[in-house]
């Protein structure tokens, strides 16, 4: 063999030997991908829009049979679109677009309010489609969506029925009470029945909840409504009423099996807080066992009212918007992230500018009894953003606390931050003391 041939053969050999370690196993990327701290979820196949997917999120208690580690509902805000996203124990997700005649009857009106109906064992939720003034229920296990039809017709007199929904035990009955707000009232379906009770005219004067007609449509598509042990006397309904030009308020109602009564109002601390009451969240931030109320007043502040709430009281803490934020407080959730006593508050600002990207959005985490600290978690990260953020992404439009249960039976599962943007949902696995995924 001639010298050039020997040289080339030698070169081949050297390259082959050198290339062996360089030979790439693309499966390593799959492994790494499964180890990614954040799970980004796109809209499932058949969803109405890939860019209007996770503007409204509802984490739901995982199924008791352990068939999924977590699941949540995601709804479009511009049209009818409802998806059930399931996450397995390894952290991989799968999505399913829910369909059915009840959704078809919405005639493209969106579902903009969702509340879990806990305790059913199969996962179910109450849905509100205010544009259509309809209420629906969904069974996650059977993936069935049904229309919830009140016994008395409400739509004729109350537009935007279902603009806010909540579930809780207000009346002390065996079953949970369903609560649905409209443009001007709130209805309690005692023990989940179709018969409702609502506040009387006097109560509505004491606790005004009528939305201003001058509010932008977005603010009238979903209003803050929750049920919790807010009062010293027991559970109450808290419903936010942001103002168009005037300061907003949060009205508190108590309920019995026969009446809904005004319990008081939390007025906006500042005259400029027109958005006061646009978002609400219940959490035990100081770890005293008494739920505290977090009231968002976007775009500038979030107020903490320590429980028990005394109507008319001033907020315990005011959390100002960090610099550069544009819609601070548009989404709120309370959850225990660090595993220590006291919940943390996640405050979404979908209009925040990130690295010069206007409207990229972020979520800021606050901790401590007065939510003054922002860096006490296992990771130093206190501001969540999309790693590959883009302008107008509106990351943080929705936030939630996603129960994640690796194995059944699921007792006190850890909750993971669930952040929504119109095009994606993000689940964070590593912000707590441990990564709960089964590796």
């Amino acid at each position, binding site marked *: 063999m001639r010298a050039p041939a020997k040289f080339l053969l030698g070169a*081949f050999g050297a390259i082959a030997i*050198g290339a062996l370690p360089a030979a*790439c*196993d*693309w499966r390593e990327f799959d492994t790494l991908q499964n180890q990614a701290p954040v799970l980004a979820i796109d809209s499932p196949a058949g969803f109405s829009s890939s860019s209007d997917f996770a503007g409204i999120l509802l984490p739901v208690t995982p199924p008791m049979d352990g068939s999924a580690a977590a699941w949540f509902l995601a709804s479009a805000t511009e049209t009818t679109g409802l998806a059930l996203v399931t996450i397995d124990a390894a952290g991989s997700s799968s999505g399913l677009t829910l369909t059915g005649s009840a959704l078809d009857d919405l005639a493209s009106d969106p579902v903009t309010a969702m509340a879990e109906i806990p305790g059913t064992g199969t996962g179910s939720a109450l849905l509100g489609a205010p544009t259509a003034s309809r209420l629906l229920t969904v069974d996650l296990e059977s993936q069935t969506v049904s229309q919830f039809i009140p016994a008395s017709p409400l739509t004729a007199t109350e537009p935007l029925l279902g603009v806010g929904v909540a579930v809780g035990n207000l009346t002390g009955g065996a079953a949970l009470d369903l609560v649905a707000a409209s443009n001007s009232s709130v209805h309690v379906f005692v023990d989940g029945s179709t018969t409702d009770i609502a506040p009387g005219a006097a109560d509505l004067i004491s606790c005004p909840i009528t939305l201003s007609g001058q509010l932008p449509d977005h603010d009238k598509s979903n209003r803050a409504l929750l049920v919790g042990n807010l009062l010293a006397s027991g559970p109450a309904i808290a419903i936010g009423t942001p103002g168009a030009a005037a300061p907003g308020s949060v009205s508190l109602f108590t309920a019995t099996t026969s009446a809904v009564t005004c319990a008081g109002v939390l007025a906006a601390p500042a005259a400029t807080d027109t958005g006061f009451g646009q978002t609400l969240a219940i959490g035990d931030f100081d770890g005293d066992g008494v739920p505290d109320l977090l009231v968002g007043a976007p775009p500038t502040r979030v107020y903490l009212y320590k429980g028990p709430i005394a109507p008319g009281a001033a907020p315990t803490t005011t959390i100002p918007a960090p610099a550069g934020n544009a819609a601070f407080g548009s989404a709120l959730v309370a959850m225990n992230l660090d595993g220590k006593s006291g919940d943390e508050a996640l405050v979404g600002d979908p209009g925040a500018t990130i690295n010069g990207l206007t409207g990229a959005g972020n979520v800021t985490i606050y901790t401590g009894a007065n939510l003054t600290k922002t860096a006490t978690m296992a990771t130093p990260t206190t501001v969540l953003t999309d790693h590959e953020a883009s302008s107008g992404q509106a990351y943080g439009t929705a936030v939630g606390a996603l129960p994640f249960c690796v194995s059944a039976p699921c007792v006190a599962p850890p909750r993971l931050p669930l952040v929504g943007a119109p095009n994606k949902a993000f689940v964070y696995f590593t912000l707590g003391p441990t990564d709960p995924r089964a590796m």
Partner: protein
Amino acid sequence: MTRVRSRYAALLLAAAVSVGASGSSTSARAAEEATPDKALNDAKEAFETAQTFFVRGEYDTAASKFLEAYNKKPYPAFLFNVAVSYEKAKQLEKAKEYFERYLQDDPNASDAAQVRLRLDVIGKLLAPPPPPVAAPTVAGAPPATPGTPAAPGAPPVPGESAPAPGAPTAAPGTPAAPGAPPPAPPPPAPVLPVLPDIDTKGLVVIDSKPQGATIYLNDKRSGPFGKTPWHGSLESKPVRLILESKGWKAEERQISPRSDKLIDVYIALSEEHYLGWIEITSNVVGADLFIDRKDIGAIGRTPFTGQLKPGKHTIFLERFGYEPLQEEIDVPAGTAMQHNLTMQKSQAGWVTITGKTTEGGRLIVDEKFGCTTPCRTQLAPGKHKILVEKKGFEDYETTVELGQGIETTIEVQMSPRPSRAHAVSTSIVALVIIGAGAYVGYLSDQNKNSLKSDISSGQLIDNGDSRFSYGKVEAIGADVLYGIGAIVAATAIYGFFEHGPDSTGVMEHRSITLAPLFGPEGTGLALGGRF
């Protein structure tokens, strides 16, 4: 016929050698003398006169002159010419007589057979015609008159035909009687043979002093032609005479024999006492003989005789199948020496490579250069590894078992080797592809390391990070490129090792043997081959 042999007479006639002797020469040739034989001169004079008459068509006179020449020197050729002249003169009886005398004088003449055939024809022409067959008797029809046919002894002239068949044979004046029935047609006359044309013979007379010198024609390789004195006819074309006699200096002459000439060559050889005479014989007939130097080629073959300058000389004998022989001899002046050399059969064998495609190749025997092909090389008996190599061609390899005296001829057909250019270019392509694969793999690795670093440092990257997809695609791309590169590289490697059709060879073994040989010049061993 008396031959004057005085040296004086020889010198006098030195310049007048012979008619027609080319290169006739000069007085410087002391050895050359005109014939001292007066009778021969007279005969030659008569011969030339006869030829003059023959050319004129006066054949009778020519015949008498040829006969006169014969009477001076009784060369059979003269009788032949007498017969030819008489035949031309239409005197077949005499022609027959002299042809017969010619055969009596020279029964072994080279043209004896033709002369006998001619005599047969002449005999038939001279024979009387057969008697006519009696025709049916017809009243009034007189019988043919006897004696009207041509008289016996008046044969047809050569070239003339017998009377035409059907020609009236009746004598003139004997017409058929009027009113008589026509006579029966005579039987057809027999067809007489025709004598082919003939010409006289030339004559060459070669004599020497001393007589008994060996005559060679043109060169000595064809062997001795005869010894002096010699006379006879030669073909009409120039020929070189070489006369050689032991103890005498060899002489050469150029002559041009003709059918109408008598060429008389008489050469007085001069004694050359300062030369030696050698006779070299060998057990191998036909071995090439070289004297003193081989570069001028062989001067003869065994057996060989010739003169040589006195002194020491080196004799080389070569013959394929035998060991070359070299021997020193001492040649004394004026003496004759005989050397009988014995050649030994070669102990070796030979390998011969032939074939047009081997031109310019190399024969490697047992990994040592043998010769530049096509060629023959001598090898020791036994097994040998043969390799014929040539640039641009596939090697031809074989093993031969050589025996003593065996020549193995291999007709090799070299097969062109495929070009390596394609393999080189393919290698480069493979290197580029593999290099690209390595680069893409490097990019993939960078993404992987970056992701690992981010994950381990707590960076909140999500599973949709573009590095996952890019890295994965790069990893797959790198693997694909590696795979393609490996395939191309394998193709390139195959190209380097690829060879064309094998060069082929047809082997033939030939045994060189000796056989006893008996010839007029002696005995010896002849070289032969068995295939």
